C-alpha cells in the first residue's frame, strides 16, 4: 500500500514569499502530524490533526504558519512571509489515532528560503 507522500520534495523560495506544502496521509489514518527538522536536530512538533480539526497547534512558531485538513485526509501547511530561519525539512506523519500512536512519516519537503 502507499505510504505518506509529500509534495514538493524540494522548494526554494525567496524571503517574504508565501509557500504551501502538501501531505497525503495513508488512507484511513485519522491522525496527521506536521514536524519541522533542522540540520542535526530531531523533528520538532508543529501541529496535530484528528480528522478535520487541529487538535493541538501548540508547536506552530508564530502566526505566519497555518495548516488545514478540510476533508480529513490531505493536509496543507502554509507559511506566509517566509524568513531564512524557516529553512528546514518539513515532515508529515499519519497514524490510526489513539491509542495506537504509531506514526508513519513521509520523506519530507526540504524548504530553502533565500
Amino acid at each position: 500500500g502507499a505510504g505518506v507522500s509529500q509534495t514538493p520534495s524540494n522548494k526554494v523560495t525567496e524571503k517574504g514569499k508565501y509557500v504551501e506544502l502538501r501531505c497525503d496521509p495513508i488512507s484511513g489514518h485519522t491522525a496527521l502530524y506536521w514536524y519541522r527538522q533542522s540540520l542535526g536536530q530531531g523533528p520538532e512538533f508543529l501541529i496535530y490533526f484528528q480528522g478535520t480539526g487541529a487538535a493541538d497547534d501548540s508547536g506552530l512558531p508564530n502566526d505566519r504558519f497555518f495548516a488545514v485538513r478540510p476533508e480529513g485526509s490531505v493536509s496543507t501547511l502554509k507559511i506566509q512571509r517566509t524568513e531564512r530561519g524557516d529553512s528546514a525539512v518539513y515532515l508529515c506523519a499519519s497514524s490510526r489515532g489513539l491509542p495506537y500512536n504509531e506514526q508513519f512519516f513521509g520523506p519530507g519537503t526540504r524548504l530553502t528560503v533565500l
Partner: protein
Amino acid sequence: TQLLEQSPQFLSIQEGENLTVYCNSSSVFSSLQWYRQEPGEGPVLLVTVVTGGEVKKLKRLTFQFGDARKDSSLHITAAQTGDTGLYLCAGAPDNYGQNFVFGPGTRLSVLP
C-alpha cells in the same frame, strides 16, 4: 517544556560489536518511541514502549523503558552495517497529548 536528551551524539563502531544508546529526560512520558532515520527519508518507527520497566526485543535490538517512564535505552547486539543511521527517541506527554517530543538523535556508523 519537556525535553529529551540522547547520548552519545555520535557513535562509530566495527561490525559485530555491541552498543547501547540512551534517551533521558526529567519529565514523565506516557509512552516512548524509537525511530531510525536515513538521509533524505522520514523516520521509521522501530518500537513503542508504554509501561515503566518494559523491555521489548526486535531481533538484535533490545529496548527498555525506565521504571519511572523518564528514560529509555536501545541496545544493539552484533551490529551490522545496515544498522547505520540516525536513532531518534520520541516521547508522548504524560497527559496522553499528541505533541510528541523528539530527542536530537544518535548518529550511528557501523563500519565493515
